[in-house]
């Protein structure tokens, strides 16, 4: 089979390289040079264009229109963006600060946590590692409903809630706190719950990445006099798994900015009490599916996209491979 292929290859080489300056010649040259790349790409590319690029582009175009889902959209230029920046008090006062606060803590926090846990798991033999990986990943696997019920039970607002009864039993509280309904506590609870469930696909990728690193690298480093595990992490582990680190970083950025369900499920309402847990995605839902202002909702999601892109660029700088 091998020789057959070699023959076919030689045959292909023997064919004259098309040099005519016609369109057909140009196409033939392109086919030889880049044809196979596109052949591998095309099934994905086709589906991607139809089901992702077209909808995303139309959402982008919708952001320049007024569209209430009943009448056809009509073009209003940048008005959506202008009113978002100048008139949307809720956005400026609650949604944007909330999202930034949430993302700044949960993004890097969840990412660091995922990496540290993946690294620890990699130090264990196979069986306990699989068991721990399963457990740590399970919050991402269990449907959000089950998760919400668990946390609602813990933070239940009356004296029977686990946290309330615990604190009251300790004598730290006199009366129960409405954890999930008070603007003061909702955000911290959202942050804790999201951190708790942040061992997702990025975590699995980093775990696989760490396990992939050649032990020879560690041996060589030991011979060169590297002694502490911290040095090992920063000079060997992280540089050797840059692609996976970048993937994990992008996923945690995207994940935190696209988080939205959490505040609504915990408090049980959109908008959340006094907008305390309102994130950009809730804002999009609020306008798109409660007020049916799709154009405006699309504009908000474009702004969200720009924010995500900005932070991803930072991550790219950190982990971009040199090639």
């Amino acid at each position: 089979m091998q020789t057959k292929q070699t023959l076919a290859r030689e045959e292909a080489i023997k064919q004259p390289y098309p040099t005519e300056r016609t369109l057909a010649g140009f196409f033939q040259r392109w086919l030889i040079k880049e044809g196979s790349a596109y052949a591998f790409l095309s099934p994905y590319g086709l589906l991607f264009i139809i089901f992702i690029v077209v909808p995303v582009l139309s959402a982008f175009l919708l952001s320049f229109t007024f569209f209430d889902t009943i009448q056809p959209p009509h073009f209003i230029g940048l008005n959506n963006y202008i009113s978002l920046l100048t008139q949307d008090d809720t956005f400026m006062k609650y949604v944007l600060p909330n999202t930034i606060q949430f993302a700044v803590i949960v993004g890097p926090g969840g990412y660091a946590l995922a990496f540290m846990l993946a690294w620890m798991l990699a130090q264990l033999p196979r069986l306990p590692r699989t068991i721990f990986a399963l457990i740590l990943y399970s919050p991402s696997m269990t449907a959000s409903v089950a998760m919400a019920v668990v946390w609602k039970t813990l933070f239940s607002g009356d004296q029977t809630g686990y946290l309330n009864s615990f604190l009251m039993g300790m004598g730290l509280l006199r009366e129960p706190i409405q954890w999930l309904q008070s603007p003061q506590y909702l955000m911290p609870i959202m942050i804790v719950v999201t951190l708790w469930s942040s061992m997702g696909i990025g975590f699995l990728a980093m775990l696989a990445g760490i396990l992939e690193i050649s032990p020879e690298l560690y041996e060589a480093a030991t011979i060169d006099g590297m002694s502490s595990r911290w040095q090992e992490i920063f000079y060997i582990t992280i540089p050797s798994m840059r692609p996976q680190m970048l993937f994990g970083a992008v996923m945690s950025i995207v994940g935190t900015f696209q988080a939205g369900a959490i505040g609504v499920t915990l408090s049980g309402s959109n908008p959340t009490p006094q907008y305390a847990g309102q994130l950009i995605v809730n804002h999009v839902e609020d306008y798109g599916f409660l007020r049916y202002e799709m154009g405006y909702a699309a504009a908000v999601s474009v702004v969200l996209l720009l924010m995500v892109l900005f932070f991803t660029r930072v991550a790219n700088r950190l982990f971009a491979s040199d090639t």
Partner: protein
Amino acid sequence: MINKRLSRYTGIRNAGINPKGFHVSQIKFYVILTPLSALMLLPIIYIFSSAFKPPDELFAFPPRFFVVNPTTQNFTDLFSKLSTSGIPISRYLFNSILITVITVAASIMVSSAAAYSLSKKRFKLKKMLFAINNVALMFVPIAVTIPRFLVIVELNLLNTFWVHILPVLAMPVGLFLLKQFIDGIPDEVIEAAQIDGASDWWIYWRIILPMIRPALATIAILTFQSAWSNAEISTLYINEESLRTLAFYLTTLTPANATAVNTVAGQGIAAAAALIMFLPNLIMFIILQGQVMSTMSHSGLK
């Protein structure tokens, strides 16, 4: 010959990290991981114990995590309800299994081929196409719900079997992850194979795919999960009962907002259904995550 060269790259993962057995130095990791895991286990414990709770415990106040008097009543209720439905349950189950199997297999093939091209091929638009893929990944899914619906209507995919599969095959996350892993394969491996006369397809099938098995397993976990528990497509795009999935059917057994409504029987059935939907995810995770680990531990032995 290619295999020989390959083993130079694949056959060196062993020792140090990914140890073979227990060592005293591992105790500290167990000390940290065990209490954390106890916290992470809560939802699983909850799903399992709720499924076996009798009604008075499901509505117990204060609520409890653990079941005191386990009963299989919820499952009996669920199955008796299933037997009275117009369409046999096996139809939904068959749909779900077929859809999940095709989606996982096709999605992996399609994404890994594209990832190979974007990682190892040389062509002009390469960087731009990868960037477009990542921008698409960052766009909030809910903002494209309506445009995507219109696309599916235009393509006449409403009420067809393929609407379950085609729209979800191109998964930007999958492409991104696979490309990152293929980036880690040294170019020399592929060049060596090319010199030996290997075709593109051979390189993709015999070198790239085996070397990124951990990534493939990871993506399979993700795809399986989303395909298996997808009730949304059945809700939005399907009107014909016989084309809907098990995940959808189980959501119809209980009132839309299962957490808020106080229908006693509904709650028990919902808890049992939740466990049935969850178990395949759990099993697949164990099998596939085992794949991630085994590639590493076996290749070191040769």
